[in-house]
């Protein structure tokens, strides 16, 4: 499958939006955290996992989704959230812990829920695999359209929850696609040190489903394979496993000294930054001009700025909100 012009520009725009969003989050995160870096301080406290470099995965997959489709994401959710179309203002406000955030500040950056676009994430490794199967089952049982995507990291694949969900998806022929972002690292542990096989696509056969590995963090290739997989799911032909080589340009979380990375790894990754690469290709393919893309970038920037301003200006929830929303209203 090849993206249309609109799809191509949509993918580029979402990649840029995600990148700009995280660049500013990164800056604000450090406010109040210097000279002494203490996670608890500043307008954005807690852990912060950036997805810079991994944007192609999110856009290549989500280009095929609409609001009805379901996405379960991970502790590193921003790029996926943005590609799935979550409300950027509410997400920013959530990250700032404000009343106007999705949960009014109860959840935070690892717990972004936008029910309008069926987006959820969680801080526990592989915890989204089962819920994705459940949403897919719900659609299958109700005869309603919609597929579910479970994103996870290459380190997460060794968690039992992944295996159980893969088997369930296989045995019940569920409309679900498992998408592994292989950024080579699970915090400080390399894929080689954690995983008995070099590529997880070979694990698909263990569940009777097709498996694919996509190299080189390429949004076009991702669009292609993911599109086929999502179509198969929509057609009732069952689940697929896709692993995608991607790059984590930042540390595992902010504050990570990254001493475990081999010399030179980061430089090499930055040289392959997918955003300039896609920009060049768009131009080379004659799909859009530099001016078109500049306009897209400006638009992305202004959306991000607006969202951040909204978050900054919003009020905190009252302290006592901590005690509500434990049960359904």
């Amino acid at each position, binding site marked *: 499958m090849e993206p249309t012009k609109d799809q191509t520009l949509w993918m580029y725009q979402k990649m840029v939006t995600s990148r700009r969003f995280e660049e500013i989050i990164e800056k604000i995160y450090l406010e109040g955290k210097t000279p002494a870096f203490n996670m608890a301080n500043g307008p954005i406290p807690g852990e912060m996992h950036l997805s810079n470099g991994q944007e192609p995965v999110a856009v290549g997959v989500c280009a095929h989704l609409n609001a009805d489709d379901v996405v379960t994401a991970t502790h590193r959710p921003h790029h996926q959230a943005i590609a799935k179309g979550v409300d950027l203002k509410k997400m920013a406000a959530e990250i700032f812990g404000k009343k106007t955030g*999705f949960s*009014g500040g109860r959840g935070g950056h690892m717990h972004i829920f936008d029910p309008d676009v069926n987006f959820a994430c969680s801080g526990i490794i592989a915890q989204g695999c089962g819920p994705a*199967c459940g949403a897919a089952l719900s659609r299958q*049982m109700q005869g309603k359209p919609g597929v579910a995507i479970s994103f996870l990291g290459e380190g997460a694949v060794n968690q039992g929850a992944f295996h159980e969900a893969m088997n369930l998806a296989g045995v019940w022929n569920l409309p679900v696609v498992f998408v592994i972002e292989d950024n080579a690292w699970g915090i400080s542990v390399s894929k080689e040190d954690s995983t008995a096989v070099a590529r997880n696509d070979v694990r698909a056969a263990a569940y009777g489903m097709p498996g694919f590995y996509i190299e080189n963090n390429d949004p076009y290739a991702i669009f292609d394979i993911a599109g086929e997989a999502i179509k198969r799911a929509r057609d009732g032909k069952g689940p697929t496993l896709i692993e995608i080589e991607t790059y984590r340009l930042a540390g595992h979380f902010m504050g990570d000294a990254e001493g475990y990375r081999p010399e030179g790894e980061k430089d090499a990754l930055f040289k392959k930054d997918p955003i300039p690469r896609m920009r060049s290709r768009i131009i080379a393919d004659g799909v859009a001009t530099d001016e078109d893309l500049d306009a897209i970038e400006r638009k992305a920037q202004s959306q991000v700025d607006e969202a951040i301003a909204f978050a900054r200006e919003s009020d905190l929830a009252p302290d006592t909100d901590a005690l509500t929303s434990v049960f*359904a209203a």
Partner: protein
Amino acid sequence: MSDNIANERKFTIARAMAESIQQEMQADERVFVMGEDIGALGGVFGNTRGLLDEFGKTRIRDTPISETAFISAAVGAAQDGMRPVVELMFADFFGVCFDAIYNLMAKNTYFSGGGVNVPMVLMTSTGGGYSDAGQHSQCLYGSFAHLPGMKVVSPSNAYDAKGLMTAAMRDDSPVVYMYHKGLQGMGWLGTEAGAQVNTPEESYQVEIGKAKVVREGTDVTLVGLAMGVHNCLKAADILAKQGVSAEVIDLVSLVPLDRETVINSVAKTGRLIVVDEDYQSYGVSGEIIATVTEHDISKLKTSPKRVAYPDVPIPYARNMEQFCLPNPNKIVAAYTSMN
């Protein structure tokens, strides 16, 4: 109603649960059941018997032995508009899937600020007494009740079993429904006759979060749950013969906990004995005592007591297991030792 008809509706808890689920599935398309051996077998403990025939394999769904997968799938389905009932065959197995329960099912409503509800029922069997040893006999009430975001109930009889199950399926929050094997009415597990009571045919609800005074008394308050209630009632009978009037409270629900009913009873009797088949320390028995004493210690005439499972794994040999289990005589002895 003639005696005959009344007796026909003297249900086991297993049958009461199955009828409740059946009626709710008839009334609400969104309700379905998942679990191990809940289809052709009708549930190892009989609580889904007959449902496969009526509703078919799509809505009565045997699962692989993958508790994490199917419980978290239930969460995903519940968030997508379904109302799943899932079975964890024995509460003892919670360790293989507790993340899906306490960190996912129980917290997504909070994490989403109410944006997402998780209307599902997790039913699970508890309890020992039939020598099924240390990985198949635990109650673990405290383990579930300690963690926020899930309601926790446990019926002591068929009437409550049906009404609580219906209430649980209609609740928009996740409910953990713990049924005691010894009360289930499966012959092969023994049968506590007191659990089989008249059970109305029409659908009804028993309120979650409300304790019941199942026997009134003035001298001592006996507090129990599930099998504990029957032990308390039997102890109350013995005590009555000794001229002691015991009030018995069936907690019915651990979360929410009806603290008021317990406090009011102790305010009247001045004495408290908590009976719990779960491990003694850091559990239900401590919480009930703390609830009463932190409210107003002066209402207690003497130190409260507990008759709970000692802090040891559950032994297999019948004599050892029976030695550890709460029973009416231990409750009577606890009363007798009060000064």
